[in-house]
């Protein structure tokens, strides 16, 4: 069976991508499976300059999920291009770079750097990180600033496919999605983490030094599924579903509500072979569902 999907100019051999920040720079997963088999690799969010991230404790477990307040620690775009990208199997599977800028200029510069790099398959703009002081989520909470970031990156990135990653911390996700589509996005991915908090009642300390972090994992799947459903019904560009996906059933649930592809996030921490296993299970699951391709299934929810 054929599991190909098109996202902008990209053709993915299957709809399984890795969510930014949960798959490192990709190479870390070589011991666990053949990276070439992946639908695409989305790497850790990159900024112009290296960032140390937030100090102190920055992960905590919660019921069916986890909080993180990494604060976009990364090695910077240049180190990535020099030290990581050449070793990734970019000829065989698209490498998607997740970008974070503190302001519009930074986003523009980042996009320009990537515009003519043939090794880069697509750009995912992160306007939804809850863990940084500047930029991040605030771009993603208002339709017009979301649109502005998108336009600028789209122009600077020239022909590169641009995916805009939305924040769930909004009242009306449909309005943001529409604004971003109108601004020229090739695709929309959602959701990023939801602001949350955990404390230790005995030590009276917050579990994250930053106090507030982003919630991810199966706990948020119902919220993610609802938002993907709402957005898929609103826009005409492909939607990429993210949030708590941890099994091949979950993948098909997101496709059922209208997603073209999905990203596997924190669930990879529970089993580093998970993405590879899910890809192997796609044909069996499709057979169980009695479908011959993803097109006939996508968005076919009886509702």
């Amino acid at each position: 069976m054929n599991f190909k999907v098109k996202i902008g100019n990209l053709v993915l051999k299957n709809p399984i991508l890795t969510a930014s920040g949960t798959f490192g720079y990709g190479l870390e997963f070589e011991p666990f499976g053949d990276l070439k088999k992946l639908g695409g690799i989305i790497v850790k969010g990159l900024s112009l300059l290296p960032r140390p991230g937030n100090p102190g404790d920055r992960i905590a477990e919660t019921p069916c999920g986890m909080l993180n307040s990494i604060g976009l620690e990364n090695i910077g775009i240049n180190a990535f291009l020099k030290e990581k990208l050449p070793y990734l199997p970019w000829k065989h599977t698209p490498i998607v770079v997740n970008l974070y800028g503190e302001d519009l200029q930074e986003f523009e510069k980042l996009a320009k750097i990537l515009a003519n790099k043939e090794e880069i398959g697509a750009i995912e703009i992160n306007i939804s990180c809850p863990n940084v002081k500047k930029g991040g989520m605030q771009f993603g909470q208002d339709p017009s600033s979301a649109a502005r970031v998108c336009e600028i990156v789209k122009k600077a990135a020239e022909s590169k496919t641009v995916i805009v990653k939305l924040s769930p911390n909004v009242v009306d996700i449909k309005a943001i999605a529409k604004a971003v589509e109108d601004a020229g996005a090739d695709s929309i991915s959602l959701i990023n983490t939801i602001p949350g908090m955990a404390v230790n009642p005995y030590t009276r300390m917050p579990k994250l030094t930053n106090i507030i972090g982003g919630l991810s994992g199966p706990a948020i799947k119902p919220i993610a599924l609802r938002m993907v459903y709402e957005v898929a019904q609103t826009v005409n560009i492909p939607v990429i579903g993210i949030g708590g996906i941890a099994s091949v059933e979950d993948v098909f649930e997101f496709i059922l509500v209208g997603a073209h592809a999905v990203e596997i996030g924190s669930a990879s921490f529970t089993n580093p072979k998970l993405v590879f296993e899910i890809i192997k299970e796609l044909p069996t699951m499709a057979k169980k569902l009695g479908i011959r391709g993803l097109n006939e299934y996508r968005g076919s929810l009886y509702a």
Partner: protein
Amino acid sequence: MGQNIECLDLEVLEVLSLDGKDFFRLRLSPPKWEWNTGQFVMIRPLSWSYDPFLPRPFSISQLDNEKLEIFFQIVGKGTKLLSQLKNGDKVKVWGPLGHGFKIDLNLPILILAGGMGIAPFIGLVKNHPHPEKLELIFGHRRDLSCYPINELSKKILIWTVRDASQRDIERLKRAIQVKVEGYSSEGQILACGPLPFLNMVHNSCISKQTQVQISLERPMACGIGVCLGCSIPGPSGENFQTCKHGPVFKCEDLSTVCQQIKGIY
């Protein structure tokens, strides 16, 4: 290292409580790994649903043809569930992870262990070709019978200090300071234990300009350097991932962390 990491479904061979309560030895069917003292594994039983969600990190305590052994204490939900595993249950395990201690088997070695910090050293002591070269200072809160101390060779020198009170802690500190000086040039010092213990070791050694290798514990989600949850600031501003660059660090690489410890803990 890093090239030979494997993720396997291993079988539980034995779960044994050492004190009938909180301290457990878990034996799993052995993978064929080359490994070093101080390396660790991530463990997640197949029977876990999504709660608890994350895997748990544990030092490799012993690994030979018969078993992979970890030694753990119940401190929360995850370790409680691990203690309830039954023979034949399957657990997902990936490892060997991180960088362990760099050990020269011909040199005298001083081991500084606090509580569960004894775990990584059990295999080392048992299998060391010259156990008479080893010396162990062991600080512990709970009764000595909770720890697998009597399994260790009679030939090694063991100093145990029960650090229940502030006075005990001062005693432990002095014992360490005195010993450390002796090893400054002629041997190696290895340390593992809770953060305040490591902090004490760090300060004792730094002040004597003594080299010590310290194994650090940080909250971890992935164990393989991708979540960046375990990052610590290195001495010159760059970050280290405890799971990948550690868990064993050179003393001087931890100065910034030790400065922060008071702030964090």
